[in-house]
């Protein structure tokens, strides 16, 4: 069920920096990482681990650039170019955060359940503290609204808990950054999946579930 479009062309822009390590990033590298995170978030059906440090670092960068811009004369041509650059950066970050918020709103119940599980297991959380608060408040508001309709006039039914879940078997386009061997293709059927190997730089259409871990640890990125 997967189509291997084996196009190997070099990509100089790829910055495979592990964010867990404290590595000094140049602004250009940070922006490249942010773009990758944004695109991954846009195409992945479920919510991905947050990139709070990256976002905060870039927000700091934006306010620094804006301070510099203020000292420039408003008729200066350079100012317009720089301002546009700042605006682009700001769009990138807002769009990334908006995409996450949309996912949180749509899949609020499953996301909260998974997050609670992660808290209990003590593993790394996917939502930032602020996002978690937003998700909880949103869920509460929604429940409150539904209660207003149902419980005042109808006893609460058990089956009103059927909620929207992300389709983690949906297909995604990806490009590999590393050599990965033996990915089990899991397209939601119970049959034994075939194995597939990824070459560095190869592109593929595959069901998201099979590569979810690779997307999260950054071995592949979605396109």
């Amino acid at each position, binding site marked *: 069920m997967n189509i291997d479009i084996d196009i190997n062309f070099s990509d100089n822009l790829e910055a495979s920096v592990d964010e867990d390590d404290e590595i000094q990033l140049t602004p250009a590298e940070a922006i490249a990482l942010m773009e990758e995170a944004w695109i991954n978030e846009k195409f992945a059906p479920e919510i991905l681990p947050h990139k709070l440090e990256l976002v905060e670092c870039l927000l700091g960068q934006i306010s620094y650039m804006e301070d510099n811009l203020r000292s420039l004369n408003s008729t200066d041509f350079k100012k317009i170019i720089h301002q546009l650059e700042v605006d682009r950066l700001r*769009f990138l970050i807002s*769009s990334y955060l908006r995409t996450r918020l949309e996912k949180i709103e749509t899949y609020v119940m499953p996301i909260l359940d998974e997050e609670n599980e992660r808290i209990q297991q003590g593993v790394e959380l996917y939502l930032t503290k602020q996002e978690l608060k937003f998700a909880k408040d949103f869920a509460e508001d929604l429940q409150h609204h539904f209660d207003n309709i149902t419980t005042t006039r109808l006893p609460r039914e058990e089956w009103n808990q059927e909620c929207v879940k992300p389709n983690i078997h949906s297909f995604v386009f990806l490009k590999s950054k590393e050599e990965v061997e033996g990915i089990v293709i899991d397209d939601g059927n119970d049959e034994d999946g075939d194995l597939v190997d990824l070459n560095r730089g190869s592109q593929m259409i595959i069901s998201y579930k099979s590569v979810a871990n690779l997307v999260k640890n950054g071995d592949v990125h979605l396109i």
Partner: protein
Amino acid sequence: MFCEKAYTLIKELSRSEDTLPPYNTELVTAVINETKHLRDQNEEDAHTSNNDDSNAGTSLLPTVRIRHAAVKRNVRCLLAYHYNRIRCLRTMRWEFGSILPADIKSNLSASEIEWFSRYSRTLAAYMRSIGEEGVNLAVDLRPPKAMYIEVRCLTDYGKFELNDGSVILLKKDSRHYLPRAECEELIRQGVFQHID
């Protein structure tokens, strides 16, 4: 027929895609009453079949099952109706900001208005909490292409102060060449029209 009213409710909503039709209190109440009625009948029949050991008790089973399915469907439709209205309201929060136009507000139920203000508060709290000073996510909705854009003013808006402190007068049908970031909100409010 069971569930016909609930179906009408859903149809009504799906017909009007972008606009929010008035909250149909009458039909919602009717669906709730129907559901209640079905439940009461079911409880009664369940009681009878429990007390009755003869064949008459089990013969009620199919009836009970059908009613149960109808109840389930009604509840599902009710939730779908309310949930999709909420989704629509949510989109409006992003478009119009925290204050709703009066004509939309008149179409909402009391509970929906309450939900809207709660959602606004939650969202605003979230936006304030990002970074050091907070980020307004409701601007920069489209990728910026150019720094300045040309807009036409559609209404007599009056004076408008730009970020650099200069004040311009916005009159109907006047054209302006302004920074995109500052126009965006007025475009969404329908004061400006973007001219390509």
